[in-house]
């Protein structure tokens, strides 16, 4: 696997067009590659280097810094259990141990059928809802061991696919800037003082106060 396919290449080009410097698109394109294949393939990093006018080594350098990017396949469902402070004192570690026992794997590894990977993660900003976890970055708040087993059973039997897309898919809605409304990129080398800073707004909505 795999360079970006034609559909994703079109998306990639749209993403790139929104940045004054195309290298800024590196992380969004790595997410796109991970959405396509479930992980970031070496070929995809080479493709991203071509698209962002960098080298594969630079793309790998960026990719390897960030925890969310997996450079090898992981389970279809990535189960991220928070054990940081608020979750720790509310049973997060016990939840992790239950998950490990129930799935028969240790944190950081994947079930033999390739369905589930467990990770022991840092705070995911649901501290008042501890213990909490994410499956493919979808939240489950105040989750008990029984509820955990229930969700896992549902996923095993092919359920909850509307709620939880496969690993790699984050937002299912993408930003699109309509051409006729776009203000345009602010080229770091070329934009003068914005006109509204030096001149008063031409058509203020509620009368000229300035």
């Amino acid at each position: 696997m795999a360079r970006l396919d034609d559909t994703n290449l079109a998306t990639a080009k749209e993403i790139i067009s929104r940045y004054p410097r195309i290298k800024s698109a590196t992380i969004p394109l790595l997410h796109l590659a991970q959405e396509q294949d479930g992980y970031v393939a070496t070929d995809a990093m080479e493709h991203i280097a071509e698209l962002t006018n960098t080298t594969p080594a630079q793309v790998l350098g960026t990719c390897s810094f960030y925890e969310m990017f997996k450079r090898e396949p992981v389970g279809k469902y990535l189960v991220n259990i928070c054990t940081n402070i608020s979750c720790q004192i509310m049973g997060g570690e016990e939840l992790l141990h239950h998950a490990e026992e129930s799935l028969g794997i240790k944190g950081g590894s994947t079930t033999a059928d390739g369905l589930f990977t467990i990770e022991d993660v840092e705070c995911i900003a649901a501290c008042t809802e501890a213990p909490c976890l994410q499956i493919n970055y979808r939240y489950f708040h105040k989750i008990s061991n029984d509820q955990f087993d229930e969700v896992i059973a549902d996923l095993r039997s092919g359920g909850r696919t509307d709620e939880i897309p496969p690993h790699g898919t984050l937002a299912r809605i993408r930003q699109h800037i309509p051409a006729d409304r776009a203000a345009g990129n602010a080229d770091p080398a070329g934009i003068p003082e914005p006109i509204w800073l030096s001149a008063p707004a031409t058509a203020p909505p509620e009368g000229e106060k300035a």
Partner: protein
Amino acid sequence: MAVTDAPKITSSRFDLADGHTIERYVATGGYQGLKAALAKSPSGVVDEVKSASLLGRGGAGFPAGVKWGFCPPGVFPRYLVVNGDESEPGTYKDRLLMEKDPHQLIEGVLIGCYAVGCSQAFLYVRGEMALAQERIAQALNDAYAAGHIGKNIYGTEFSVDIVLHWGAGAYIVGEETALIESLEGNRGMPRLKPPFFPAAKGLYLQPTIVNNVETLANLPWIMSNGAAAFAALGAENSKGTRIFAVSGHVKNPGVYEVEFGVTTFRDLLYAPVYGGGIRHDRELKAFIPGGASAPWLYPEHLDVPLEAATVGKLGTMLGSGAVVVFDEQTDMVKACHRLVRFFARESCGKCTPCREGTSWLEKILERIIDGLGRPEDLDLLLDICDNISVGMNWPPRQTTICPLGQSATSPIASAVMRFRDEFEAYLGGPAEITVQVKGPAFVGPYVHEEATADA
């Protein structure tokens, strides 16, 4: 000092099922703040925000209007970057602001861009927050279609694009220069300040304002209701309202918007409308007042108001509004270890004191918990802390490019100085401490009159 009836400024749509839609936003006063801003001059908007005394809500607590004024005159383009990389343990507010009220944030971004003269804005959302990314993408698409963003907004000369950008899992990217590195497509490692103060040399080395989500979410209300109405709320150095996430051992863990500066920790932990008391009616042992990086406070601090300067004098901070509550049965050695493990894992590796120090600290704590600790380990822990942040004072001294390393010293100095007996129980005997620790929160005792004299 009480629960006040201050209006909800940033969380007013949290209880609405459709608060994230443009229809509901506009029907509840949305985009009126932007219109009010555009009726003023950009410098008039800056003055308004300055007189509101809006403190940054990300952690450092710097006045937002003053920060805006740091852009060098005549240097363009300027960028606005939204820090939506909420990752400080205990912190849970920006995700809600992005998921439940994305238009309020977008309106705040637009007001900021107009005031500062930013030609493009980047909204950096934490990678793990898929729903927030979806809600903001939809909100941006709807706001563009309705003419709130883009070219010649409302027929004025004001034009700006807002670009949604996601992170990919790195706490350090919440530090503003690391966030800029990440936005440029690089590993998220902080830049040296000076020269890379974002307001002077930020994104693409141009003047850049990096503001926290909650900070910007206050702007529509301030522009609609006026700085005077905002400054009428709160205390001398802490105006308006503020969102606090109360987690851990309280009966009602929750996210509460309270009047800043006058509400006390006791209100927040015990008032029925907030925390509701310690679970199972146990005793309070300690609490973290402002996220994992903050030195801890104790029962004797309950009557301290949630006021930035007052809490600062105690030797800690309100940080990111994250209050984590420990009851009497909490194992403070384990809590300390878990916090330090976080910093060790999240150190970016650029500076030696942090990269080496945090992982040493983690390993020493681990062996203490495993029953393999040595009598000299407490001194060793503090000695390493002293090498990361000399004297363990407040505000902390820094030996590194960013504050991550020194943050790891807070839970250690707090736990060792206050709960030394718990460490000694793990060690199986008394431990000598010779390293000097200076931070007031670590050495106490707390003097009530002194700390609240000017509240």
